């Protein structure tokens, strides 16, 4: 009923309105005429004003150009200084010269430095050339970006983008290109994360894909390394590309009189950048090759996926630092990483990894340094890994026969059945860098990795040739003791380029001695991100 009324009323209103319109046609036309006149006069004056504005702009430009030219003239400069002096004493500082003029399309677009830009962009190219007595250089060098072949290696060409996202976040992306030994271009999403800028309570949160804050070397990009290659312990425990995965991290700057910071990261535990965890393999690129004998002589078939939060990777770190004197700084840290691994047969049960690390950095920089030289920096990291290797039966096809390539117990002649056990590995590196004059750094690094012999390494295991014989296995070469000594010399023509010569003496138990020489060169284009301590 109400609706009907409404319709009736509204149609009545419309009708009356149209009849009114008809009555006032003459007035409307008059008004239209006036409106037309007014519009025309407005347009005319608008054009006039535009012309005036243009003229003024042209004059302003001319005057500004004159002033610019004049500012190079000493006399003019002094006059300006004197006028400015008078101003400074009485009023607030004048606006910046740089900022008084808005950006115009004819101005150069600057991507470096802190100019008018939204993103800092840089490209860093890291290359190596050299040779080694080792025939298995890819096994000798544990880092994914280490020089990996005789001749030339494109170690790392890194595109870095960073900047403030908005008033709340800072963002960074590192995209790495490199050529593998086969000459294929590989692309890695090394890091891409955002980080909060002003959370309360001294907290900071980072989210995305990022390097785990484990020790000193792991979160450092190859460009900032003091040596051509990654430390052995990092390659073995944290993987060829370092421990990094998608996740979130919270860190808290403690209100202590000295610097101390607590980090807690939660990340995915799978993939090739989580080597000691739910990664498929242990060797280069994270892919365990078929013909290779895998870590702990068993495949990583025990991947349970993610059922609960405990299947993720957790990495706490605590770091603290003191200024020992006005020119000496000490930084200490303790890190750990806990997560599941997939080593063993499909139903090997819950297999976990724990890695613990301690690190020490001591740095002396002359109180009269020029360009940061001279300095002495000593950095040492030690790590311990507890790794559950699940039970594994080599008779995967269930035929009960020693097939070619299978690991076989020589005593029984049958495919090996390995029991579950926890493996313990240790590793350490210690490096000293001495910047003895501007641009020149001499370095020495010592690497050592070893492990407790596992039960499986005591068994009389052979790799079957399919005819009742085979090669004996003995010690696991992915856990065997080895050490390396690496002296090097680096010249930085500027902070945007470097040339480094390094010699490595490698001693691998069960393999032998090797000598390698690498020449590394680097260039950096664009914005140079400031170095952290």
């Amino acid at each position: 009923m109400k609706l009907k009324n409404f319709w009736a009323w509204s149609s009545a209103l419309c009708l009356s309105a149209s009849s009114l319109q008809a009555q006032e046609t003459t007035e409307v036309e008059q008004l239209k005429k006036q409106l037309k006149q007014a519009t025309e006069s407005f347009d005319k004056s608008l054009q006039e004003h535009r012309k005036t504005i243009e003229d003024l702009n042209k004059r302003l430009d001319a005057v500004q150009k004159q002033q610019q030219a004049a500012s190079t003239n000493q006399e003019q400069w002094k006059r300006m200084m004197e006028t400015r002096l008078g101003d400074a004493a009485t009023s607030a500082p004048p606006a910046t010269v740089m900022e008084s003029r808005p950006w115009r399309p004819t101005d150069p677009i600057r991507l470096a430095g802190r100019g008018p830009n939204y993103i800092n962009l840089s490209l860093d190219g890291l290359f190596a050339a050299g040779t080694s007595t080792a025939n298995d250089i890819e096994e000798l060098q544990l880092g994914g970006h280490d020089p990996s072949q005789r001749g030339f290696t494109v170690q790392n060409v890194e595109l870095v983008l960073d900047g403030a996202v908005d008033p709340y976040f800072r963002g960074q992306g590192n995209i790495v290109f490199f050529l593998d030994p086969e000459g294929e271009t590989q692309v890695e999403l090394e890091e891409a994360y955002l980080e909060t800028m002003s959370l309360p309570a001294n907290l900071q949160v980072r989210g995305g894909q990022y390097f785990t804050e484990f020790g000193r070397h792991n979160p450092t990009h190859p460009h900032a390394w003091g040596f051509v290659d990654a430390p052995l312990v990092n390659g073995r425990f944290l993987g060829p590309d370092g421990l990094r995965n998608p996740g979130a991290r919270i860190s808290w700057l403690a209100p202590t009189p000295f610097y101390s910071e607590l980090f807690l990261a939660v990340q995915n535990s799978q993939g090739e950048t989580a080597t000691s965890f739910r990664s498929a393999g242990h060797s280069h690129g994270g892919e365990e090759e078929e013909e290779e004998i895998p870590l702990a002589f068993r495949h990583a078939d025990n991947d349970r996926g993610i059922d609960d939060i405990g299947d993720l990777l957790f990495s706490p770190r605590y770091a603290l630092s003191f200024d020992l004197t006005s020119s000496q700084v000490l930084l200490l840290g303790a890190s750990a990483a806990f997560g599941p691994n997939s080593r063993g047969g499909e139903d090997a049960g819950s297999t976990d990894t724990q890695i613990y690390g301690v690190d020490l950095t001591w740095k002396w920089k002359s109180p009269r340094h020029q360009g940061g030289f001279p300095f002495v920096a000593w950095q040492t990291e030690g790590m311990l890994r507890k790794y559950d290797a699940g039970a594994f039966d080599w008779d995967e096809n269930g035929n009960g026969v020693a097939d070619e390539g299978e690991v076989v117990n020589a005593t029984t002649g049958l495919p090996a059945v390995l029991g579950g056990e926890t493996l313990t590995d240790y590793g350490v590196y210690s490096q000293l860098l001495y910047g003895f004059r501007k641009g020149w750094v001499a370095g020495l690094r010592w690497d050592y990795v070893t492990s407790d012999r596992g039960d499986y390494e005591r068994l009389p295991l052979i790799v079957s040739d399919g005819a009742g014989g085979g090669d004996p296995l003995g010690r696991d070469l992915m856990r065997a003791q080895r050490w390396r000594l690496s002296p090097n010399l680096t010249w930085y023509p500027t902070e945007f380029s470097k040339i480094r010569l390094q010699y490595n003496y490698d001693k691998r138990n069960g393999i032998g001695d090797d000598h390698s020489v690498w020449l590394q060169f680097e260039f950096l284009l664009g914005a140079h991100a400031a170095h952290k301590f």
Partner: protein
Amino acid sequence: MKTILFIAAVGGLLIGAHAVQAKLNVVTTLPDFGSIAQEIGGDNVKVTSIARGTEDPHFVDARPSFIRMLNQADVLAEGGADLEIGWLPPLVNGARNAKILADAAGHIILSRGIRLLEVPVGPVDRSMGDVHPAGNPHYWLDPANGKVMAAQFAETFSKLDSANAAFYQANLRKFNERLDKRMAEWTKLMEPHRGTKVVTYHKSFEYFAERFGLEVASQLEPKPGIEPSPTHIHALIPRAKEHGVKLVLIEPFRPRKTPHYVADSIGAKLLILPTSVGGNEKVKDYFSLFDYNVSQIIAALQSPK
């Protein structure tokens, strides 16, 4: 109920503690800025400087302790013009202190408001060496710029601590009067030596030279930030001789060998002049920086060879 009372008590304590902390905590990158901040802030501010006066301000180590220092700061004053670009950004980022983030009221960029010398015209690239796109950042060595910096400190302190605004403005007037007086003295002392030609190591003394009428003939560095090369030095020596260069000026952190060689070869005097407060034990504040440098130059120019 007890819990609520406890929380209220703790909250009250925290607020109380905050209110008691009346002094503004001021962190400056260079001690020169710190010296001026102290003059303006007086007893109402606590000033700490990151860099030491003896070190190269472009390459300060980003020590973790500085993160904690910045975490507690109410004010951060940086030189700007890319002077600290190699080390300050990660410290500010790690400090997680909203008061000193870019564009916060407590973040002073001192180069704003100062007319910088040698602002490059046209495109800049690194084949020119370490050219700062915003201009030469060593501007604090012109005492006239001290007044501009002081005005910025007074403005920021007055904004953050409005109760003492009159105090800061009075200190600013006092500072300016004192600086005007001293500047007149320094200028008078330097007047007879106007036009003296000098060679410097880096473009650190441009503003000082402008102010006091020295003429910088050349640098030992072939390009900013690039170490002196024998070719450059051997081309420089005859030119400097021809121009009658009287002084070779270097900062305390430079190597001495090449400057000595050049000074000896052209018959000039080598002067090691601090470019920052704390550059040597006689330079304790912004005024003594100029007292010392002016007296050194005059002594060198007056004494017989």
